[in-house]
């Protein structure tokens, strides 16, 4: 079948089944739709498993609760990382890639059978990894640094998962070729698709790095290789570990643009600037794994400084650009929608009751203020020594991956379910609150973990009281307070996460059918006919609200940056 389909490129034929979406007017092909559904469902299942593990981790690290025994804690922590950071996010990203290619471009998906093979491999890999971890002899944490050794199934499961994901990425590229050949769209690809392309290109690099390091590590676990160099492992592993976070960033920023377009009718302020910023991720972010290695021996300062920043933090610049253009596009669109009073009416009258919009905007704000700024601090050669491997690090990346990526993906799901599953969101009154509950929890765990990390609390540590240690170090009471607040925040995040899973599963199974005539959405999309004014043009818009927001952001950034240098200058001298 596959071969025949390739032979028919260019003959947009009757063998493909299309429907026209009544809400967006887009052509949706059946196989693309089914693949998006399958990947999205798998994503939500692994989010549920990984999220539960996350709650158990946070409750164990709450000193007053310390829920799990030590061996279970480390086991569950390993499982938490794999399920949420890999399986939830990458399944969702594959769904997103198919959405951004087939649905947005109105094309059929290329080689659907090959895509199903990829999906199957990912499922097998993800289930096998959970089996290996839960069996108990692969408690090596997400990073699996040698010479600590997991069972060989663990490495094999990750390799299978990565191969499956790579197949999904290849199908995405092939779909772009099909869409181009069959002329399903005019001119350049939309910005969201462009963002997805950058994510996919980074994914190829990421999966290649993963193969380069995980295949030898797997052979080592089978006894075919005598050892793995610990420093080399870290350098190559982070080529995967960090770059995979760049896939997330490119993906969730594409989602910001997509949701802004679909909920308030936002168009990019300037296509050139937004695309250039995406392009910079490919050029400058994927290799920047060096900031994980700033506290390592054996790598020169020059190597660290150059590779953590590429001379001028160009990837940070790219994120700062999106940080202006996304709210800027929302502001311009809202002013076109008639909300022109003062500096902030566009924001106060935004559709805050629509979980897609509220989730997107909170993701934007928290990714910038919490995840972004602290990431730069961690990526500064000398400052890194202040918090390397303390719980500040998980605090930072929960700001990026949970408050940023996961919240954006959740927000997108509120659009994907009605449009692709053709079922409406159930219990809209409750769904409205879900992003706020989850966002509050996610923001809380990020901030409180960072607070504890500043006080020296280590990451991946069962007992900061160090009860059984010969020379226990006594952490300050503030550190205990922070870990307790982290536990409370985790309960909020888990409640929001559980609510999300129930709402989405409930909507998919029991939501009102939308494929009947006259069906309306509980959370309507933006109606472009309601645009009341022609607000400015690319050359003349004014964005006082956005300028105020980015000014606050920039001042916060500078202040926090120098606070950390001041703190560094007061500790023991070392060189």
């Amino acid at each position, binding site marked *: 079948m596959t071969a025949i389909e390739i032979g028919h490129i260019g003959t947009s034929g009757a063998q493909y089944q299309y429907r026209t979406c009544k809400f967006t007017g887009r052509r949706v092909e059946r196989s693309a739709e089914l693949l998006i559904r399958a990947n999205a469902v798998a994503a939500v299942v692994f989010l549920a498993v990984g999220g539960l593990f996350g709650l158990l981790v946070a409750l164990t690290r709450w000193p007053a609760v310390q829920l799990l025994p030590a061996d279970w804690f480390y086991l569950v922590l390993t499982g938490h990382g794999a399920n949420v950071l890999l399986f939830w996010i990458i399944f969702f990203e594959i769904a997103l890639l198919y959405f951004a290619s087939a649905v947005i471009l109105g094309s059929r998906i290329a080689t659907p059978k090959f895509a199903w093979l990829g999906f199957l491999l990912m499922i097998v890999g993800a289930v096998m990894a959970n089996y290996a971890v839960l069996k108990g002899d692969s408690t090596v944490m997400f990073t699996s640094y040698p010479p*600590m050794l997991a069972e060989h199934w663990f490495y094999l499961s990750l390799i299978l998962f990565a191969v499956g994901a790579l197949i999904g990425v290849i199908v995405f590229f092939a779909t772009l070729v099909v869409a181009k050949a069959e002329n399903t769209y005019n001119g350049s690809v939309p910005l969201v698709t462009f963002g997805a392309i950058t994510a996919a290109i980074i994914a190829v690099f990421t999966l290649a790095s993963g193969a380069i390091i995980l295949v030898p590590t797997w052979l080592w676990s089978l006894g075919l290789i005598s050892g793995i160099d610990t420093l080399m492992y870290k350098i190559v592993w982070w080529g995967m570990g960090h770059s995979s976070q760049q896939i997330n960033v490119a993906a969730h920023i594409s989602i910001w643009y997509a949701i802004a377009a679909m909920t308030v009718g936002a168009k990019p302020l300037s296509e050139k600037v937004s695309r250039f910023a995406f392009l910079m991720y490919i050029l400058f972010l994927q290799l920047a794994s060096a900031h994980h290695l700033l506290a390592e021996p054996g790598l020169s300062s020059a190597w660290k400084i150059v590779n953590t920043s590429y001379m001028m*933090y160009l990837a940070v*610049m790219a994120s700062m650009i999106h940080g202006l253009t996304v709210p800027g596009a929302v502001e311009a669109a809202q002013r076109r929608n008639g909300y022109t009073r003062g500096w902030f009416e566009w924001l106060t009258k935004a559709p805050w009751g629509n979980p897609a919009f509220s989730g997107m905007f909170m993701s934007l704000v928290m990714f910038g203020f919490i995840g972004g700024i602290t990431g730069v601090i961690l990526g500064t*050669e000398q400052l890194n020594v202040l918090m390397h491997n303390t719980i500040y690090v998980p605090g930072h990346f929960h700001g990026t991956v949970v408050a940023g990526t996961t919240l954006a993906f959740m927000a997108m799901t509120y659009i994907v379910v009605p449009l692709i599953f053709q079922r409406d969101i159930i219990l809209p009154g409750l769904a409205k609150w879900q992003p706020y509950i989850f966002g509050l929890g996610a923001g809380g765990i990020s901030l409180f973990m960072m607070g504890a990390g500043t006080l020296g609390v280590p990451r991946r540590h069962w007992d900061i009281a160090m009860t059984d240690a010969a020379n226990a170090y006594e952490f300050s009471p503030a550190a205990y307070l922070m870990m307790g607040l982290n536990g409370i925040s985790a309960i909020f995040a888990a409640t929001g996460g559980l609510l999300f899973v129930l709402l989405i599963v409930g909507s998919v199974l029991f939501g009102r059918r939308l494929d009947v005539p006259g069906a309306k959405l509980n959370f309507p999309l933006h109606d472009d006919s309601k645009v009341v004014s022609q607000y400015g043009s690319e050359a003349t818009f004014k964005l006082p609200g956005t300028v105020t927001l980015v000014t606050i952001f920039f001042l916060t950034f500078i202040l926090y940056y120098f606070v950390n240098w001041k703190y560094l200058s007061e500790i023991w001298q070392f060189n």
Partner: protein
Amino acid sequence: MAINAPTNRLWWKEPIHSIELGWIIIAFLWGLFMFFFMIAWHFIGDQNLSTETYRITTDQFQEKVEAFADEYAVKDANGEAVEINGTPLVAPPVGGDVYILGRLWEWWPAIELKKGQSYRFHISSVDWQHGFSLQPVNINLSVHPGLEHVLTLTPTKAGEYGIVCNEFCGIGHHTMSGVIRVVE
């Protein structure tokens, strides 16, 4: 809209608006500043991580640490070695070398330093990777087996300091601890 093809087919010829251009310039200059400030701190700052590192076998390193601990062991009035909770206390000479090894699950031995004096620390592991986390100073380093990391440390305040492990190293990770005592 971002989900449609650009309305202007020649989008790359559109001018960039002044707000965007201004922000790009600010972000670029700030990035450049942050890059040069890391370099500048090597000249103006007192906290820069040494990257002096030697490859060494874990056995060789263990021998060096044991020889160091024997030579500078602190003795009490009866000539008995002083221990802190079972860990021998070692007082290296001012300006001298200090050897600390990480192993499952302790930092060994305990060290006594003089405030305001510099010491050359040699840190390595004899089994898995560990995280050398000096508290409450909050200096955090990665420690690899087979790599001897040498850095100069100058304590600026007297007191009892703890070393915690912050790289996961197995089921006893949370019991891994060490002591550095700084005296006037």
